[in-house]
C-alpha cells in the first residue's frame, strides 16, 4: 500500500467512526428531528399570519414571501449549526475517555486526524440540514435541481466551517457541562441576531432601519457574520437577498480556513 492510500484509509476510518457514533446517538438524532419541526411547523406556521405588509393599517413592508418561507433557510442554518458544534463534543469525549490516545499513537499525521473528524462532523451536520429540507413543501419553498445542488454544496461548506468552530470551542472547554452551556450561549444568540427570525426591512434605508429597530440591535445584526450566511441561503432557496450574495460564501470560507488552522495548531501541540 502506498503512503497516500494508507492515509486515505485512515481518513476514511476516522470519518466513518464519527458517522457511526452519531447514528447511535439518540439524543442528537432527536434534536436534529425536533428542532426543524418546532421552528418550521410550530413557530413558522404560528407566526405566518402576522407577517405581512401592514402594520396598523400603514404599509411599511412589501415582501414577496411568507414568514414560513422567510424562516426556512434560517432553520437549515440553525440545524447545521447545532449538530456541527455538538459533534465537536466527541473531541471532548475522546479526550475524557482516553480514545484520543489511540489515535495519537497511530502512524498518521495530525492533520489527517483533524480533517477526518471535521469531515465526519460536517457529514452528520449536513444530514441534519437535509432533515429540514424534507419540510420544504410545508414551508412553501420550491426545491429545484439547481437550487438544491447549490444549496447542498453551501450547506456542506457551512457544516465544515461550523464543525471547525465547534472543535475550536471544544479545545477551550474541556468538560461536557461547560460545553453545553457554551453552545447555548453562543449558538442561540448568534442565531437570533442573524436576521433569522425577524427581517431587517429591505425597503428601508440604513437610517430608516435605525428608526424602526433600536440601533444596538441593528449593529449586532450587521456585525454578526451569520447574518450574511443566513442571507445567502435565503438567496439560494427563496431568491431573496438583503446583502451582497457573495458575503455569505466569503464568510463561510474564511471561518473554515481560520478555525481549521487554529484547531490544527492546537491539535499538534496536544
Amino acid at each position, binding site marked *: 500500500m502506498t503512503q497516500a492510500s494508507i492515509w486515505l484509509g485512515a481518513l476514511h476510518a476516522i470519518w466513518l467512526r464519527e458517522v457511526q457514533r452519531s447514528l447511535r*446517538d439518540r439524543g442528537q438524532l432527536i434534536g436534529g428531528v425536533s428542532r426543524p419541526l418546532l421552528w418550521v411547523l410550530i413557530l413558522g406556521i404560528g407566526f405566518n399570519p402576522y407577517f405581512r405588509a401592514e402594520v396598523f393599517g400603514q404599509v411599511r413592508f412589501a415582501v414577496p414571501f411568507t414568514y414560513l418561507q422567510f424562516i426556512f433557510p434560517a432553520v437549515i442554518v440553525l440545524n447545521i449549526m447545532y449538530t456541527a458544534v455538538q459533534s465537536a463534543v466527541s473531541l471532548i469525549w475522546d479526550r475524557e*475517555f482516553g480514545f484520543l*490516545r489511540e489515535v495519537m499513537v497511530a502512524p498518521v499525521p495530525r492533520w489527517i486526524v483533524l480533517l477526518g473528524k471535521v469531515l465526519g462532523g460536517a457529514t452528520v451536520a449536513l444530514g441534519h440540514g437535509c432533515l429540514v429540507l424534507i419540510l420544504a413543501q410545508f414551508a412553501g419553498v420550491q426545491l429545484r435541481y439547481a437550487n438544491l445542488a447549490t444549496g447542498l454544496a453551501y450547506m456542506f461548506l457551512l457544516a465544515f466551517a461550523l464543525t471547525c468552530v465547534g472543535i475550536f470551542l471544544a479545545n477551550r472547554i474541556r468538560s461536557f457541562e461547560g460545553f453545553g452551556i457554551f453552545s447555548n450561549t453562543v449558538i442561540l444568540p448568534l442565531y437570533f441576531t442573524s436576521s433569522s427570525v425577524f427581517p431587517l426591512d429591505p425597503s428601508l434605508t440604513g437610517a430608516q432601519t435605525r428608526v424602526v429597530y433600536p440601533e444596538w440591535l441593528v449593529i449586532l445584526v450587521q456585525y454578526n457574520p451569520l447574518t450574511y450566511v443566513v442571507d445567502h441561503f435565503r438567496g439560494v432557496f427563496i431568491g431573496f437577498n438583503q446583502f451582497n450574495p457573495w458575503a455569505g460564501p466569503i464568510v463561510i470560507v474564511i471561518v473554515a480556513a481560520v478555525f481549521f488552522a487554529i484547531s490544527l495548531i492546537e491539535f499538534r501541540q496536544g
Partner: protein
Amino acid sequence: MSVLLRGGEGFPGTVAVASVSKRFGHILALDDLSLDIHEGEAFALLGPNGAGKSTLISIIATIQQPDSGSVAVGGHDVMRSPMKARKMLGIVFQEPSLDTRLTVQENLDFHGRIHGVPRRQRLRRIEQLLELVELSEVRHKIVRGLSGGMKRRAEIARALVHDAKILILDEPTVGLDAQSREKIWSYLDRVRGERGLTLIVTTHYIDEVDGCDRVCIVDGGKVLALDSPDALRSKYAQDTIRARPEDIATEQAIFAAFPQARLRRNGEIAISVASPEAGPVMDRLRGFGRGVRYLSLERPSLESAFLNLTGRELRGEQAAALGRGRE
C-alpha cells in the same frame, strides 16, 4: 549516535533509551535514564507510583517528548521519525481507550484501518485475535456493556491488529480479578511465542514480573537495578528465618545471639539474613533444641528486593500517591 547504530533497521523489536531526562515543572520525572530492551524479550518496568514509569512509557510510545537524550524504537528515533516508530508499536494504555459506543469488532477494525492494514489481512487478523482473547462471541456487542476484563482483552487484541514488533502494556492487569489476570498473561505468552514479540510491561503485581526475562526497577527517574528476577532476588533480598520460642528464656537467648532479630505480634521471632548465611543461622537456632517450637526459612521475594532498593512497599499505592501526587 551509537544508540542508533545498535538499534538499526535490522532490529525491529529493540528499544534503546539513552540519557533521557524529562522535567514537569520542578519535578524531575526522568533523570538521565538509559536502558536497552532486546528483541523478543519480556521486559518488566517496576517502580512505585511517581517513579517515572509512565513517563518513560509515554516517551517510548511517542506521546511525550524527552527534554534531552534520545529514544530509538526499532532503530527509529522517536523525535525525528515518530511515524516509523509508531508502526513498530502496539500499545495498551493504563487508562481504557476503547470507543465504548462502538462494537468490539468496530474498535479493532478502526485500529487496523488507521494503521493501514489491508482489508483482507485486517479481517483475518481480527478474527484470529478475537479467538485468542476469547471474545469472538461478543464481537458485535457495544463495548460499554462489557466487563473490565473483557475490555482489557479487547484492547490487547486491538494493539496487535497491525504488525507490531513491540507490545507495550502499561499496567495491563490493574483492577482485574486473579482469573482475568491469569488469562491475560496466557494470551500474552502465546502471542509472544507466535510472533516473536518484544514485551514491555509495567505492573504492580510482583508475581507477574517473575515471569519476565528481565526486570528493571526504577525510582526517582533513575534505574536502580536491571537484571533477571532470580539475579535481583539473590543480589538485593534477604532470607527470613522465623522461629517460635517456647519460653521467655529462649527468647532472650535468641535476641542476645542475633541483635537483628525482631519480635512479631504473633510471638514469632524473625531474623533477616543474606542467603549464604541462612544455613549456619538455622543450625545455631536448632542448637536451642526444644526451646524452639518450630523453625522456618523463607526464600526472598522480588518484593523484598524491591523494598530494599526503593525503601518503599510496592503496594503502598495510596501513601505513595499522596506523597508524590503524580502518575
